[in-house]
Every structure is written in structure tokens, then in C-alpha cells.
């Protein structure tokens, strides 16, 4: 029983961090129909900036999110204005190729600035755990998970309780009608792109504490995050959170009760199984033209 509790808790902690990392990807798709292949690269960029903040200023990397996030938000906003906006109405494949190029450029720039050696962030608590009863809760995972909850909550509050959130939802549901009622969809999209990239940056600060990284680490992340947002339902923030928790728990349970060799494969099998039953994902919505296509 202790082993099961330990396994589930570790899975949920990892899942919470996956949720934060995936939230920006699904948010950007939800509003702009842009699949941001550079999302994993922005995650690693967030990790490198968090490393610099920790290394140069001595600031805890999780507290350093207060510095990391605005920087990455500004970068996202700028990228949208300069690169994404001009091809906003081009076919979706154009934005996929654009963000693919962005991922390569970001990786190259990170290699130039920070080098290709492995980088690790080691705050004082990185090797410590809480020990309630017979289980252990790694402090870095707990703090990272709590920070992920705070950031996701803030994102949810912005989306549901603010004028900006209403504008974002309106722009996502019907951009033309949103323009008619005075919402500047382009400005809203720039903010959303910035928010999405900022969420990746915040996720990067946390994952940078948990795992060592190199500029090329984004390959592993983008594959995993794409699977998470597809399982959750493309564009659904709640779906991405639920899916990320399923992913984290599935990985951990598989590693403990079956084999670590299958730990990264089983979550993808779950994605296949769910999509066979619900092609729109766990919390995605099926539209009329999908029914016609079927």
C-alpha cells in the first residue's frame, strides 16, 4: 500500500509539472490554431535563464520565475509581432514550419550563449525530501508542483475572471465576431502567444531544477507535450492539465509495476486508446464538420 501511495504521489507531482509545461502549447493553439513546435525550445530557454538568474544573482530558481517569466513573455510577444503575425492567415502548415525553424534557431542560440555542455541547477534543497510516514516527497518536486499549481491557477483566473480572458475566449471562439465587438484580435493573440511562451519559461525553470539539460533537450519535451495536449483535446487548458496528470501517473505506475523500459511508451498507448474512443481528446469538443467527415 505504501508503495502504491508513493507511486501515485510521485506521478502526480511529475504530472503537475507536465501540466504547466503543456498549458502554453494548448493555450496558443486554442486561440491561434498555431502548433508551436518551438515550445520545447522555449521551455529549455526558460531553464537556461533560470540557471543564469540562480548562478549570477544567487536567487532561488523557483523564486527567479518572477524574473524569468516576464523575460520569456516579452520574447514571445516580440516573436508573435515579428514572425507569427505576418503569416497569421496562412495555412496551418506555414506556422508549423515557422515554429520548427524557431526551435532550431533557439537551440543554436542557446548553444552559442550557454554552450552544449550539460547544465544543472542545484538549489540547497535539490537532494532533500519530506518524509511523511513511510513515503518520501522530494522537496524540489513538491515546490515545483506547488509553483505549477500557482501559475496554472493564475492562468485560469486570467482566462475566466478578467476582461483580457473574456477577450481571449471570444477571439478563440469566433475571431470575426470578436473584432466586431471591438476586440483587437491581433493584440490579444500577441498577449496569448506571450503567455503561452511564458508558461513554457516557468515550466523550464522548474524542470531545470529537476533535470540537467542541454540545448538539444527540447526534442524529448516537444514530443511529450504534443502527446499531452492531443490527449487532453487540442486547445483545452483543463484537458491539458488532466492529460498531464494521467501521463505522469501512467509513467510512474508503469515504471514501478511493469518495467521502466515501458514507462515512456505506455502513456502513448493510452493516447492511442483514448483517441480511438474520443477522437477529440479527453476534453476537446467535436464539431459539426467532424461529424460530416466521419
Amino acid at each position, binding site marked *: 500500500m505504501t508503495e502504491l501511495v508513493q507511486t501515485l504521489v510521485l506521478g502526480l507531482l511529475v504530472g503537475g509539472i507536465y501540466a504547466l509545461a503543456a498549458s502554453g502549447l494548448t493555450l496558443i493553439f486554442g486561440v491561434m490554431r498555431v502548433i508551436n513546435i518551438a515550445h520545447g525550445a522555449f521551455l529549455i530557454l526558460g531553464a537556461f535563464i533560470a540557471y543564469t538568474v540562480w548562478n549570477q544573482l544567487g536567487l532561488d530558481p523557483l523564486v527567479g520565475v518572477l524574473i524569468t517569466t516576464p523575460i520569456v513573455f516579452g520574447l514571445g510577444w516580440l516573436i508573435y509581432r515579428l514572425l507569427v503575425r505576418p503569416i497569421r492567415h496562412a495555412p496551418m502548415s506555414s506556422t508549423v514550419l515557422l515554429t520548427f525553424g524557431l526551435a532550431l534557431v533557439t537551440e543554436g542560440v542557446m548553444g552559442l550563449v550557454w554552450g552544449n555542455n550539460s547544465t544543472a541547477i542545484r538549489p540547497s534543497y535539490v537532494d532533500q525530501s519530506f518524509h511523511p510516514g513511510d513515503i518520501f516527497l522530494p522537496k524540489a518536486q513538491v515546490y515545483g508542483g506547488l509553483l505549477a499549481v500557482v501559475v496554472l491557477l493564475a492562468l485560469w483566473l486570467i482566462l475566466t475572471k478578467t476582461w483580457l480572458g473574456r477577450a481571449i475566449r471570444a477571439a478563440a471562439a469566433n475571431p470575426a465576431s470578436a473584432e466586431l465587438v471591438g476586440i483587437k484580435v491581433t493584440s490579444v493573440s500577441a498577449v496569448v502567444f506571450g503567455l503561452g511562451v511564458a508558461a513554457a519559461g516557468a515550466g523550464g525553470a522548474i524542470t531545470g531544477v529537476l533535470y540537467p539539460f542541454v540545448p538539444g533537450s527540447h526534442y524529448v519535451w516537444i514530443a511529450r507535450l504534443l502527446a499531452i495536449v492531443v490527449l487532453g483535446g487540442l486547445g483545452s487548458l483543463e484537458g491539458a492539465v488532466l492529460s498531464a496528470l494521467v501521463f505522469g501517473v501512467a509513467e510512474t505506475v508503469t515504471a514501478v509495476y511493469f518495467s521502466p523500459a515501458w514507462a515512456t511508451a505506455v502513456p502513448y498507448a493510452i493516447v492511442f486508446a483514448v483517441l480511438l474512443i474520443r477522437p477529440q481528446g479527453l476534453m476537446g469538443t467535436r464539431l459539426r*464538420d467532424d461529424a460530416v467527415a466521419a
Partner: protein
Amino acid sequence: MAHVSIRRCWKAVALAGAVSLGLCACGGGGSSDSGNDLTIGASLPLTGDFSEPGSAAKQGYEVWQAMTNDNGGLLGKQVKLEIKDDASNQNTIVSDYNALISQDNVDLLLGTFSSLLNLPASAVAEKNRMLYVEPAGGSPDMFNRGYKYLFFAQQATADKQGLVFADWVKNLPPDQRPKTAAYPTLDDPFASPNVDGIREVLESAGIKTVYKTTYAIDTKNFDSIVAAMKSANPDLVVHGATFEDGVGVTRAMLKSGWTPKMFYETSTPSFADQYVKAIGEDNTEGVMYAVSYSPEADTPGNKEFVAQYEKMFGSAIPPEDAADAYAAAQVMQAAVEAVGSIDDQLALADWLRGHEVDTILGPLSWDDTGAPEGEFLIGQWLNGTAEIVLPPEVATAKAEVGWHPGS
């Protein structure tokens, strides 16, 4: 925000998936003019998962190039390097070596890093009948294909690299000898045979295996593996790792509050400064590992190599991977100088099969398959310094029993 046509989504996701795969398949290009230069081609993982050893290997090749050119070149010609980035991708490396041979018309090849990448790259070299000396790639699978042009420029293949350590453990006094052991390993053609080689010796010596597992290369979460090891509570953990996973497992053990009495890990502890930064100097005490190179080694040319490395890259401690790459180039150079021509590269290979070559790693010799016939060194972190502890005749310090993290 979830009102999206599934049909459109799938098209986009399919494209995104294809692009994600494409991310891993981008290679460099370029061409070289031969002139009076001798062009030597290699593709290295300068980006992607193996960027760390790949970058170090590039440094090793560059140091060799500088020193060779300073000494008059090779066959009287200045040496020019043509190095591509394979992005740690098995498909890209095949394209890269094909391009080096057919487009860049390089005169000679040098190998890349990791068995994973050397397996396909060496096949391209073999098909084109070009000598292929690799600085890494010790998987036994490399040498059971009947290749004639392939040579591994380290002391032993992966399955034999931990044998010196295994023999040492086997012969420890009963009160110090571990009774149980765990063997987690990355699913990797280098790491797995390394661990299996040690396990076979220790099992035959009566040391009981209480945990054994293999995990995939993209595993990030090691807490569950460590939780399982903690339940099994082995005296010794032998971990087959590269770098990030080695750090991940070590950190997970520290976080869990459980650590084994003895800890051996492949590759990761040999990354010197980066290893110390990743797990903390006070957690390194007593960790053991197999290693091919020591900066303090009294081998021919080693002092000059260390001095040149420091001059070019600012550190007096060259990484093991840089030294391995330098040694691979030394092996190729020895064959070329002995034969006196590069026209018949089978002659270069035949010469290597029949001769021993002095390198900064020590003397290297090979069997008919190109597998080396030597013995690896065993390193141990003691008082914050990476020491060579086995075999005793080349040791810089005495091997100590036990891992003492936090000391």
C-alpha cells in the same frame, strides 16, 4: 477554446509530428577543397542528446589537427577537418558520412560518438572501403558484423570495461564484500553490455541480484526506479548510464534518503566538472566508474596534449571524450604514416590489425574484428578528485570501499 475541427487538428498534428521527427534529422552541408591539404571528415553530435561528448570530441580532433600541422602535417600535407553536426540522430549521421565521402570527397574518416551513432556510420565507411577509427562505440554489436575497416580507439569493448572493477569487488574481504546488487541500466548498446559484463562476474561470485531493469533513453523520472531499488535494498548499485540519466538516478537516490553502500556508474562520473556541478562535490565521495583516460597518465605525448588543450580551450583537465577523440586520430595517423599512402585503405586497416599503437590512452592493439584487446582503468572520486584506483600498477590512489554522499 476547444472548438476546433478534429479533421484540421489531425492534419496539423500529423504535420507537427513529421516536423518533430524532422527536427532530429537536420544535418549540415558544405564542401572542402582538397588542394594540398589532407581532408579528414567526421560527423559529430554537436547538438541534440549527445552534444556534450560530441563537443568534447570535436575539441580532441581540433587539438590533434593543430599539433599535427605544427609538426609538418600528415604525409607532408596540412590536415584540414570537415566536421558536420549529426544532431545526435541516426538517420542524419548516415547522410552526413555519405556526403563527406561523395560530395566533400574527404581523404580519410574519423568516427563519431556513442555506439548508437557509430553503428550506422561505420556501415557507410565499410561500404565505401574507408578506414574508420572510432573514439567511442564500444558495444560488442559493433564488432560482430565482420567489418574490415572498423577500429575502436579505447582499451576494451563495453562488455569488458567493468571487469577490473568486478574482479576487485569479487576479491574484497568477506566483511567488505557486497552480498546483494542492483543493476539499472539505460537501453543503450554501450551501457547495457557494460552492466551485464559486471553482473555475470558478480553473480558467479555469489553476489545476489536483487533488482535489474532497463529504461528508455527519454526517461526523465527516476524516482520510481529508485523507489523500487530502495525496497530491494542492495549493497551495491551498478548503473549503466550516459550523463543526464546518471545524474537523475544519483539525485533520486539522494532525495529518497536511501543510498547503497557501494556505487558504480558508467560514463557519468567521468564528466569531471560537469558531474561535480550536477550532483554536488560532497556527494561524489567513493563513486567508482570505468575510464579510458587520465590527464596525469605518463603515456607518450600526453603532457603535450594536455598543454595544447589548455592553450586552445583554457582548461588543464581535458574531458575523457576529447582525449578519446585525440587517440582515435593518433591511431589513424600511425597507420597512414606507416603505410605511407591513403590510396588503399584496406592496407591501413591490415597494418592496424598487425601492430600496436602508442596513444595518450596507452598502447592499443586490436583483434581481427577491430575490437581492442586491452584493459580499462577504474576511476574513483576521492576527496573531490577523480583518481585512477585500478589496476594497481597505474593507480594514482588506493581504491576505497563505499560511497559516502554528503561527506
